[in-house]
């Protein structure tokens, strides 16, 4: 019997928002093209947290982590690891992290030279960028494996969403610049300062910043939807990120 303690968020729902389709569902598609696109979307969302996770939690060198990340996502596609995900057993993120743990543990055990599978070309992943992030943002210790992976996933999610917002706003309005200065870098302490610096009225700043935040929120939610298998998982993930206190 579905029991919702403490009047927790809603019950099952038949609706799944359709702006971005669930890549997780498409991993099981009979159409190989759709499956490949889904795999690319999942890789795009998770490669960086996976790389950092291997570097920090598995204490691997830069080169080892690169090889393991490449090999994991390649093997995940070829051997259809991720297609075995069952939404009833937990979140996709946790499933992927456990697959990654199992993969790295197996590689450790075999202690063999990593082979990239089946002639598949190396994935175009920007490891230098990920390594640069690790150096410029020393990871704080004390987080358990799940919390570490989650935080790195959120960092990558927000960075990607900001980049999408930047591209959308380019040449159209100053919303991204306002969001970056006020919410990201904090180089503007008030709306008045933003208005002065950008030669706009405070009302214009208020409206454009609100619109940029709204759009940023929408992009984040769409990206979460893309890596959720069900409406329940989407609601749970979105609520964890935007509806609860930051841990």
């Amino acid at each position: 019997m579905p029991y919702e303690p403490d009047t927790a968020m809603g019950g099952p729902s038949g609706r799944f928002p359709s702006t971005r389709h669930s890549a997780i569902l498409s991993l099981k598609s009979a159409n190989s093209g759709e499956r490949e696109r889904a795999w690319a979307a999942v890789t795009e969302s998770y490669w960086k947290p996976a790389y950092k996770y291997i570097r920090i939690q598995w204490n691997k060198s830069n080169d080892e982590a690169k090889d393991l990340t490449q090999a994991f996502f390649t093997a995940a596609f070829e051997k259809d690891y991720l297609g075995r995900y069952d939404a009833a057993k937990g979140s996709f993120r946790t499933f992927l992290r456990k697959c990654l743990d199992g993969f790295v543990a197996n590689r450790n055990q075999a202690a063999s030279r990593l082979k990239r599978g089946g002639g598949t070309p190396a994935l175009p992943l920007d490891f230098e960028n990920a390594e640069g992030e690790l150096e410029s943002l020393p990871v704080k210790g004390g987080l358990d494996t799940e919390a570490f992976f989650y935080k790195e996933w959120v960092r990558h999610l927000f960075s990607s969403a900001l980049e999408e917002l930047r591209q959308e706003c380019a040449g159209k309005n100053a919303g991204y610049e306002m969001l970056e200065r006020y919410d990201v870098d904090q180089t503007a302490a008030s709306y008045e300062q933003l208005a002065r610096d950008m030669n706009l009225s405070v009302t214009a700043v208020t409206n454009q910043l609100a619109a940029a935040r709204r759009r940023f929120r929408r992009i984040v939610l769409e990206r979460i939807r893309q890596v959720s298998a069900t409406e329940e998982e989407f609601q749970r993930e979105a609520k964890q990120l935007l509806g609860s206190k930051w841990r």
Partner: protein
Amino acid sequence: MKPLPDEALGRLREAAALPDLSGTRYTLVRELGRGGMGVVYLAEDTELERRVALKVLHLDDASPELSERMRREARTLARLEHPNIVPVYDFGDLPGGRLYCAMKYVEGPRLDEYARQRHSLPERLRLFALLCEAVAYAHARGVIHRDLKPENIMVGAFGEVLIMDWGLARPASESDAPGHVLGTAHYMAPEQARGEAIDHRTDIFSLGRILEELAGEPGARPPKPVTGIAAKAMAADASLRYAGASELAQDVLRFLDGLSVTAYRESPWDSLLRFCRRNRNLLLLVATYLAARFLIFFWTRL
């Protein structure tokens, strides 16, 4: 893409979670609390220059069930005009699409916080009787709250009690899908926990649990009649509970007036003690009179 430090992640998360109030009559003051459905903010109504409690759903594309629950709460509140039920001022959707509901802002403690303060038992019981009357009013209009608990009840600045959070309230004629359980386990009647059909007596059970907690004090047990009232309200068999919240309130008020209560069969000794407590002043007067007559009698014999 540039790396985002943890502090920027927190700020971005807050920025994305904040409701977009641009173009509305409200400005945000601070967060008051959060629950399963959404977040409640203290906001300023700039048109009427008053503070309101603004409840906003977590997600702009929340499930239809959640949206419907919020809409139902606003409609339920709109037709329950009672001094002990929080009034709704406004309902709609924000520019980002998230549903909101503006309600009266109650400045005061929640009932569980109030219970921890040092109020006398009669004060707490009078408050409880007011709460019962508000629930009885809702029941008379065919509405069952279904989630009565101290966290959903506020005590206002003038000692008034206000019932909040009617998100689970339903007309008595409607029921949930079989087996779908909503509510808070500790305050939930057995039939509600089992996912069976419920009626207004499920709220009576919750009131009994609230009474039990409200009347209890660290190191002191509530008087037996009060314990009896709570036990009757919480009877596992709904047919053995009070027939209505008014009857429950009446029993509590009878106790406060020093009268016997229907939920507790007292011994002759209990009856005598209660009679003495209730008529303490009269008994003192009679005793004083008899003592004076006794003294005068012996004085005149000397």
